[in-house]
Structures are given as structure tokens and as C-alpha cells.
């Protein structure tokens, strides 16, 4: 049995009085890449933020057996790396300095980076293929390069849990595959990874487990082949689809929106 890194039981999140996540129960296991899918407005980002401890949630979220709410912000940050959507960089800082921010939970804020910190930053840069522009100002990079730098920052903390909100958005096809392979590798070397992904083909190819969120409710979870059926794609996404067996596994092909 694999180790459960994060256990969510009956998680309910309300934003400004609106019920956004309605009773989600699932585990994130070490060694597993879980992919969260669902239409716009289903509550995916809200659920991810609640899991990362950024917004209050009802129900129980436990990290390595301890309640998320009982952890200090620093303890929480050491255990969960969170990559928000949008890849925001407000100041034109050097890429290496941005990625080094991932070590913030581990480092004493007033001393420099340790040798271990520097090694982790280097690993994150090289894993995301961003080493070549480590010295450049992050604001001079293309959208795809920024997305990889943002991911490198999240990887640099080397936390046992990684939650990534749309890590493949704005990436070209090659880098979408690079990033998904990277997330799978991070998971298969021992972390529990949860990624929100819109592309069902990528989800089907790379997910060890797919979680489907629909109007705040977790309506299915399991292997891609069980979860991504034409019926479910039709009911959840309103899209007519067929599943094709290909060299890289069962892949949903989307035909047309159902009117």
C-alpha cells in the first residue's frame, strides 16, 4: 500500500456565502499523479487552494496524519508546494532568484541559501529546462518559459505534496508533454502530486488517477479508462466524445459540443 500524504474528508468550501466545494472526499498518495478535471466554475481552484491551506474549509484535511489547520504556515509550506494559476511575477527578478523563493519554507529568511538549497534550485532549474536562462529577468521571458519557471519554483521546495493549478496552460505541445512527464516523474519518485488540467488527452495519458469535479461535487475518481467514458464526458463537460485506443493508451477524442 502506498503512503497517504493528504487525506481530505467531506471538505466543504464556501466563498462569500456561496457553496463552491460540496463534500469532497479523497486521498493524495505518495507516488501517484492525480489529475483534477472539471468544467469552468466547477470549484477546482477553490478546492486546490483549500487543500493548500490558503482558504478556510470545513470538513477534515490531514497532512501526514496531522490536521492541516494545526500546522503553522511554515510547517504547511514545508509539506505542500502550491503552484497557482496565472504564473504571476510582479518584479523583474532573475529566474534563479525566483526559483530560489521555493526554498523560503526551508531557509532562515535572513541568511542566504545553504548548499542544499542551492542544489535543490539547480535540480528544479534543470528539470524544467530553464537553466539556460537562469540569469535573465523573469519578465523578459515568453509565456511558456514563465510557466516553466513558475513550476521550477514550486518544485524547488521539494515538498512531499505538490498541488499545481493548470501547470500546462500557455505551453506549446512539446512543453505540455515535458511538464506532464515531469509531474509524473516527481510523483513516481515519491511525492503526491495533484494537477488541475483542462486537456482531457493529457489527463488520460498521464494521470494515475483522475478526479472529476462537477458543480462542487466530486462525482468520480479512478483510473482514466474507468472515469473518462463518453457518457461522463457528455454529462460533465457537455461534449460528445469517443475513446480511441492508441499507442499511448485510451485517449478521448472530442467531437462536438452537445447543444
Amino acid at each position, binding site marked *: 500500500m502506498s503512503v497517504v500524504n493528504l487525506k481530505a474528508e467531506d471538505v466543504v468550501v464556501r466563498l462569500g456565502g456561496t457553496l463552491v466545494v460540496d463534500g469532497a472526499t479523497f486521498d493524495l498518495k505518495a507516488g501517484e499523479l492525480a489529475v483534477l478535471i472539471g468544467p469552468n466554475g466547477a470549484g477546482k481552484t477553490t478546492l486546490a*487552494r483549500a487543500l*493548500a*491551506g*490558503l482558504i478556510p474549509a470545513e470538513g477534515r484535511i490531514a497532512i501526514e496524519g496531522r490536521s492541516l489547520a494545526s500546522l*503553522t*504556515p*511554515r510547517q*504547511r*509550506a*514545508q509539506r*505542500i*508546494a*502550491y*503552484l*497557482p494559476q*496565472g504564473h*504571476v*511575477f*510582479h*518584479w*523583474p*527578478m*532573475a529566474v534563479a*532568484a*525566483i526559483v530560489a*523563493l*521555493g526554498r*523560503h*519554507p526551508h531557509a532562515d*529568511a*535572513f541568511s542566504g541559501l545553504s548548499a542544499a538549497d542551492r542544489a535543490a534550485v539547480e535540480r528544479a532549474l534543470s528539470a524544467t529546462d530553464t537553466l539556460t536562462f537562469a*540569469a*535573465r*529577468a523573469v*519578465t523578459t521571458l515568453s509565456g511558456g518559459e514563465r510557466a516553466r519557471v*513558475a513550476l521550477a*519554483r514550486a518544485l524547488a*521546495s521539494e515538498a512531499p505534496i505538490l498541488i499545481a493549478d493548470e501547470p500546462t496552460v500557455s505551453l506549446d505541445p512539446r512543453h505540455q508533454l515535458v511538464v506532464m512527464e515531469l509531474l509524473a516523474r516527481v510523483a513516481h519518485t515519491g511525492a503526491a502530486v495533484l494537477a488541475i488540467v483542462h486537456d482531457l488527452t493529457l489527463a488520460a495519458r498521464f494521470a494515475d488517477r483522475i478526479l472529476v469535479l462537477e458543480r462542487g461535487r466530486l462525482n468520480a475518481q479512478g483510473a482514466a479508462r474507468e472515469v473518462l467514458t463518453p457518457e461522463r464526458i457528455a454529462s460533465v463537460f457537455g461534449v460528445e466524445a469517443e475513446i480511441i485506443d492508441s499507442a499511448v493508451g485510451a485517449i478521448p477524442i472530442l467531437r462536438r459540443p452537445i447543444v
Partner: protein
Amino acid sequence: MQAKPQTTPLIIGLIASIVVLAILSLMVGPSGLSPRAALAGLLDGEGAPGLIVRSIRLPRTVLALLIGATFGLAGAALQGLLRNPLAEPALFGAPQAASVGASFVIAYGLSGATSFAVPLAGIVGALLSIGGLVAIAGRRASLTVTLLAGLALASFAGAATALILNLAPTPYAALEIAFWLLGSLEDRSVDHLIIATPFLLASWVLLALHAPAFRALTLGEDAAASLGVDIDRTRIMVVIAVALGVGAAVAVAGSIGFIGLVAPHLVRRRVGSDPARVCLPAALMGAALLLAADVAVRLIPTNPNATAIELKLGVVTALIGVPFFLMMIFRERQLLSGAPS
């Protein structure tokens, strides 16, 4: 490519400029002293030079240093907190509130009783504005709410100062308030230093403690929070620290604009954009700028029959600061018009 940060040479250069400017500040005034006489007066305190340097020019010089550093640091901190290069210390209304308190005391002649009265009233005004801001916006308020509440408080304080000026019992009181509002370090004594310094130092310590959070905030609030930064606490502590420091500074020296806005920009070209690394050089730059301005007001000749003997400090800093501000708006207008950054 980003230029390699040159933080250490810049800091050394700034400290050297501050030392030179401080010596100049001890020399310059109605009775000019040679560098040797100024230093001798400072060290032995004997004779007229000793009296002039120790009890008149030294407090003034130290105040210019501390207040300039406070403005520079506060500006850098707010720009870091708000991730916005146009943020400046007057944003949350503390200096305006300090002006209300000081104006009130001047208007009703309470300042004759003790030289503590004006700065004390200014500090009380600034503290009330912090209390008001926290009460209105709430401890967990978003940045937008805090900014709006600060803006409202600043406008209200501006109106209150205008009202006091309007209702001033004598023309002399009105004139005194008007001049006080222009900012000056003329005739400031050790008493002013004693009353302001604890607040200025408290502000420095609080801001220094939260500086590392500014670096994480470059990734936005969610990512910074996920890195272990307590965003709500950082926001409220930085706002309080800025209000304490800038409020006390304004309470002692009157309104002095633009140092907080300009100083971080001047150092950013050298030290890079890391918002935590900008703080110390910005403080030193602020100290050097205000010291230079305070030396300048004593050197620039004015009409000997004019009501004010010296140019006012706030006038000089704004005259230099506003063109700089406009230039910055000009340069960053694309960014400011909402183009994606």
C-alpha cells in the same frame, strides 16, 4: 539580460555621501563654519561653534538622516507589499493625519506650552489614523479595501487640516500652519529627536522583520502564502510600521513628499528589483536625499524681506520629486494603462 546587482558598492557610496553631507550640514547655516571648526565644535562643544553645532545643527542633521531613511524605507516597503512601483508612504493617510494633529495644536496656540506638543499631536493623529484604518478595513482586509479605506482617511484628514486652517483664530496661526505644512527642519531641537526616534526605530525594526516577505510576494499573494508567508499579518504590520514611522516623521518635520517614492527607484537600477534587497539602500538613499535637500534650503538664497527665511524642505523635495514622478509615469504609461506586465 539583467545587470548584475551592485548592492555593496552602492551601499558604501551612499554611506560615504551621507558622511560628507552630514559634515556639510554641520557647517552650513546663518554663520558658516569651516569643516575643521564644525568638527571641533562637534567634538569639544566649546565656544560659539560648539553651541551652534551641538544644539542647533546636530539635532537637525540627525533628524534629516533618520527621517529621510524612514521615508526611503517606508517607500520601499510599501512598493514591496503592494508590488507596485508607484506606491508611496502617504497612501494610507498617516502623514495627512499627523498634519491634522499638528495643525490643531498650532492653531489653538497650544504649541507654546512645550515643544513636545506639536510632534506629540502629530503622532497621536497618525496613530488614530492607523486605528481607524484597521477598524474600517478589518484585520483580514484585502489590499483593495485597505487602499480604499486609506484613501478615504487621507482625503478626510486633508479636509480636516483645511478646516483648521479655515477656522484659524488669527492670521498668524494660519500662516504658521501653512508654513509648517510645507515641511522644515529649521529650529528642531534634541527634544524633537527624543520624541520621534523611538517611533522611527520601531518602524525600521518592524519593516526589516517583514522585508523577506516582500520577495515572496513578487509571486502574488497566493503563492507567497503557500511559501509560509502570513499575508494578513504582513499587510497589517507593514501598514502600521509605515504609519508609525512616517507619522512621527511628519509630526516633527511637517509634510515632506516624494522621498519615499523616489529613493527606491533610484537604487533599483543598481541593486535590481528584488524588493527585499531594495530596502536598505533605499533607506540610505532617502537619508542622503533629505540631508542634501536640507543643506540646499540653507544655501539657496531667499529674499531677506520674505516671511520665511529659508526655503521649505517640502517645497524642495516636491520640486525635485514631481518632475521625477511625471517622468516615471511617462516611461511606464504603457504598463499603467493596463497592458499585461
